[in-house]
């Protein structure tokens, strides 16, 4: 049962990551790879706030998510002000750079990782309670992203993605919308990161590399960019599928490349054959 709970927790966390990344890249059209780093920054802040300052875990989780929002503004404000293209370049630097920074912070455990993080729940039903919490959080995030991207605000996001210059010429503040959705999306990534820290109780900087960016992107693309259900389907499929392969009992030297090929292959197949993803509809332009 423990295995099933852990799988559900991973599905929930990935769902939060995919839904929030979809807000940024799918709905907002903001091309960034720095999503796992906000997960990581928040995970570390939350873990350390609890570990060293004794901040209660729920409050520490909120602090972590808030920290992710603040850091996202630090990335998006200067790079979006120049031009949207700079966001991608700056985000690569941000993603790679901060992983190195974490590796060199002694209080965060350095390259060997941070252990001894307190768990959000204790007792024999810890995993069940945690799975429930994560899935409720995931449902909440998916719902909030849906609310944000539909209705009046959603219409503005969509128009901005279609033609930003024209959008501005109508009196719309594109910059404010971009920074907002980038901040909200990164904050959700932070939420997932902090939850992760207080369940698995161990963090290692290598977990949050740029490979994670491609995994989350795969979930979004396969599910359907710019749709509400897409990241839900994508995260479910791409969390369960690699687990299913582990039942084949292949040696690790075959397993790792196989999973890599699976992700890359899926992205290529979908981009060529079904760019709208599993649930997306093709929009006539």
């Amino acid at each position, binding site marked *: 049962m423990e295995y099933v709970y852990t799988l559900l927790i991973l599905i929930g966390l990935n769902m939060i990551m995919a839904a929030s990344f979809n807000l940024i890249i799918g709905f907002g059209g903001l091309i960034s790879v720095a999503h796992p780093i906000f997960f990581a920054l928040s995970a570390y802040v939350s873990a350390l706030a609890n570990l060293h300052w004794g901040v209660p875990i729920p409050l520490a989780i909120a602090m972590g998510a808030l920290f992710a929002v603040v850091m996202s503004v630090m990335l998006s404000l200067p790079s979006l002000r120049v031009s949207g293209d700079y966001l991608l370049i700056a985000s690569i630097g941000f993603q790679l750079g901060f992983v190195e920074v974490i590796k060199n912070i002694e209080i965060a455990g350095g390259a060997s990782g941070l252990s001894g993080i307190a768990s959000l729940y204790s007792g024999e039903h810890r995993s069940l309670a945690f799975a429930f919490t994560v899935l409720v959080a995931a449902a909440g995030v998916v719902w909030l992203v849906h609310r944000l991207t539909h209705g009046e*605000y959603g219409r503005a996001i969509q*128009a901005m993605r279609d*033609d930003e210059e024209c959008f501005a010429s*109508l*009196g719309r503040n594109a910059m404010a919308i971009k920074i907002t959705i980038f901040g909200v999306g990164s904050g959700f990534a932070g939420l997932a990161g902090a939850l992760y820290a207080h369940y698995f109780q161990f963090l290692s900087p290598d977990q949050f590399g740029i490979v994670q960016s491609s995994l989350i992107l795969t979930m979004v693309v396969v599910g359907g960019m710019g749709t509400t259900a897409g990241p839900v389907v994508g995260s479910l499929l791409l969390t369960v599928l690699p687990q299913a392969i582990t039942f084949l009992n292949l040696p690790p030297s075959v397993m790792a490349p196989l999973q890599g090929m699976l992700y890359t292959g899926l992205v290529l197949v979908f981009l060529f054959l079904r760019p709208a993803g599993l649930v997306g509809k093709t*929009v006539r332009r």
Partner: protein
Amino acid sequence: MSASANPSAAIRVVNVRKHFGGIVVAEDINLEIAAGEILGLIGPNGAGKTTLFNLISGIHAPDGGEIFLRGQPLARLSVYRRARLGIARTWQNVRLFPTLSVLDNLLMGPRHYPGEELIAGLFQKGTRRAQAAQSLERAQAVLARLGLANAGAKTPGELPFGQQKLAALARTLMNDGEVLLLDEPMAGVEGQVYETIKQVVRDEAAAGRAVCVVEHNVSFIRDLCTRAVFMFNGRIEQTGTVEELLASDKLAELYFGGMK
């Protein structure tokens, strides 16, 4: 033209200049458009007509000079702030939002769009709903006025080109601004759509807006404009009545290569 303030001028462009590298796209531009006036902007391709629109609407920041809207300087304001003050424009190539319905395109057009204020929206749901209803009513009225009453639910791609032009004009009218900049409203348009656009331009000026039209269609300019400006190589070569300009040898030489 003198740069001195004319009280009836809605918009005043003073000594505006813009270079892209070594290329002069606007040099020493001085221009006034009065409320209720329809000013024609003519000149060959590359003369700087659209660039002038881009300078007024804020797409390009001028290298020098100033632009005043009812005395308020605009040159340092961003595109969206100028639009919110009442600078409304269309584009040569339509530029409707392709994934939005025609009605939703119009709903993005008012100077004030409460939907983009996320935090405020959480606390004033009632006001917000009333504003949205008002906006929707106005958009439907504008669509009806331009003969697009049945096109609201369609996406721009589903409309013939003429109706796309009308929809783009309709979206610009949602701004309800003092200044209306129309970039080749007649290009690729004929028949009923042509007549509709002509009537709309006339009505908008009559309603007190300062209208400026870039247009190659001489009969359109002649029918609507009392005054016109001839641009060439980023400069204003001549200003006068349309008849004066059309009779000018200089214009004939620069525009038509000497043939009249």
